[in-house]
């Protein structure tokens, strides 16, 4: 498959996201609202031992990245319903460039909204003090998470028959940060939840981001987070390819 095909389809997906006014507005407003909600409404009641904005910013970053990536499920599902996929197939274009286009647009969209969240966090009192290497590592981890979740959402979009259902299922994916250390320390959760909360993919990611952004030692957490992302990515991309062939077979 020529790189030209993938580029053309990526440009298409970006153009379509840019012109989907409502979705774009949600993608930008939701993170802002969530940030303000956690810091100003819940923050006063939660004691994490630091300024809550400092504690929660990595969590909101990950939560918003998840929400944004989940929208890939809807865009993929809409595409599968249109006649366009048949036309692409009759041009001998396989699933990889089509889905890569969706995922690339999702990663770009959410990189922008993540940057917005970070800017807002700084505006309301978040004071990161990362090392230059920490910035790189945090960025790379967030991108890896976006990539993995976008592919997972693409697979969900192929599995479901309607865009509405796709959006619904994908919503669950974006729920993962809640039972993690994103918003409250896991030790405050009921004990039966500890094994899950401590070992689910989002917790090491959040711990890494927190440590990296505040210039602390992150230990092995970044590697664990990266391994999770790589695993999800591999499974989701494989599943998406198979599901595409199943849907169009």
């Amino acid at each position: 498959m020529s790189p030209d095909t993938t580029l053309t389809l990526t440009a298409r997906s970006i153009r379509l996201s840019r012109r989907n006014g409502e979705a774009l507005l949600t993608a930008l407003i939701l993170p802002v609202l969530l940030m303000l909600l956690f810091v100003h409404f819940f923050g006063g009641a939660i004691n994490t031992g630091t300024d809550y904005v400092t504690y929660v910013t990595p969590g909101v970053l990950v939560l918003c990245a998840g929400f944004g990536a989940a929208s890939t499920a809807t865009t993929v599902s809409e595409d599968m319903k249109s006649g366009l996929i048949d036309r692409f197939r009759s041009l001998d274009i396989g699933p990889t460039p089509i889905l890569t286009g969706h995922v690339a647009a999702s990663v770009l969209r959410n990189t922008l909204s993540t940057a917005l969240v970070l800017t807002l966090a700084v505006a309301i009192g978040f004071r990161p003090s990362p090392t230059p290497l920490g910035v790189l590592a945090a960025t790379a981890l967030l991108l890896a998470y976006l990539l993995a979740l976008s592919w997972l959402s693409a697979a969900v979009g192929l599995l479901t028959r309607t865009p509405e259902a796709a959006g619904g299922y994908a919503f669950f994916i974006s729920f993962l940060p809640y039972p993690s250390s994103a918003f409250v320390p896991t030790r405050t959760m009921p004990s039966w939840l500890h094994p899950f909360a401590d070992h689910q993919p989002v917790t090491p990611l959040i711990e890494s981001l927190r440590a990296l952004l505040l210039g602390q030692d992150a230990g092995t957490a970044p590697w664990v987070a990266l391994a999770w992302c790589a695993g999800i990515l591999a499974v989701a991309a494989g599943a998406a390819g198979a599901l595409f062939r199943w849907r169009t077979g």
Partner: protein
Amino acid sequence: MPANEATAPVSSGAPAPATGAAPTPAIEATGLTKSHGTQHVLKGVDLTVPDGSVFALLGPNGAGKTTAVRVLATLTAPDAGTARVAGHDLRTARSEVRAAISLTGQFAALDERQTGAENLRMMARLGGLRRPAARRRADGLLDQFGLSDAANRLVATYSGGMRRRLDLAAGLVGSPSLLFLDEPTTGLDPRSRRTLWDAVRALSATGTTILLTTQYLEEADQLADRIAVLDSGRVIAEGTPAALKSRVADHRLDLTLATPAAYAALAPRAVHHSPETLTLGLPTDGTAPHIRALLDTLDPTRTTVTSFTVHTATLDDVFLALTSASPVPEPTHVP
């Protein structure tokens, strides 16, 4: 397959002469079958579409037209049967087939949130053209389909007719030698339909082979060199429009009779019966002399026929004529 009980040799003429200068047909399909679960959509379809012709696959909803097109366009694999499309085997040379064909489906394959020009440039780029060439190709097609003025408007703002034309243009970006059009005018108003017909004729004039599906006899008649009638997954008739229509008569004369007795008297001669309204339909060529003569013959006293209408034969009439081996049962009631 039923056993070949009658073993007499098939006597339909001399064996086909060795392939001399005859060009390869654009489509040669034998025994195509396709089932979706327990539903047998295609039950052994044979088709030969001559190169450079316009071929219509005529049939009602659910006859298997779309499935037949999807199979021939490599989008769905047949369960059984073989086909050569554009000179390549459907199963073993899928990429070669795809390089030669294009499919414009029932539902516009366009991005609503891209402009007409963006849609076409995208298809041209995906077809392998470089950016400047893609731009030229898109501009040329927009011009050819009368869409230049709307080139930079989002497709979401297009009318139904404009969408179909853009969709057709998008299918032509790669200059296919064989074009599949699945119900190209369904849902269009009469004027948009004519515009699309003109576009199809213009394409055919350039030598492109076109296989189109339609539920309208009139459309097949207007556009096609040959028609195959598809019913419940089988081709039940195939030939030129003139030959097919001669089997069903062009027109139908509908007579409303004055009394049930008059209805009963004329019913045996009719091809269409509607006892509730005392209306009978009879085949006619639609000319004034023929209709006048018919009326005189059927109603010499000029008292039994109260009114009449003349219709062009509909697909229903074709189907009734082609599918009903036994004649339409006579109405038995009449008090």
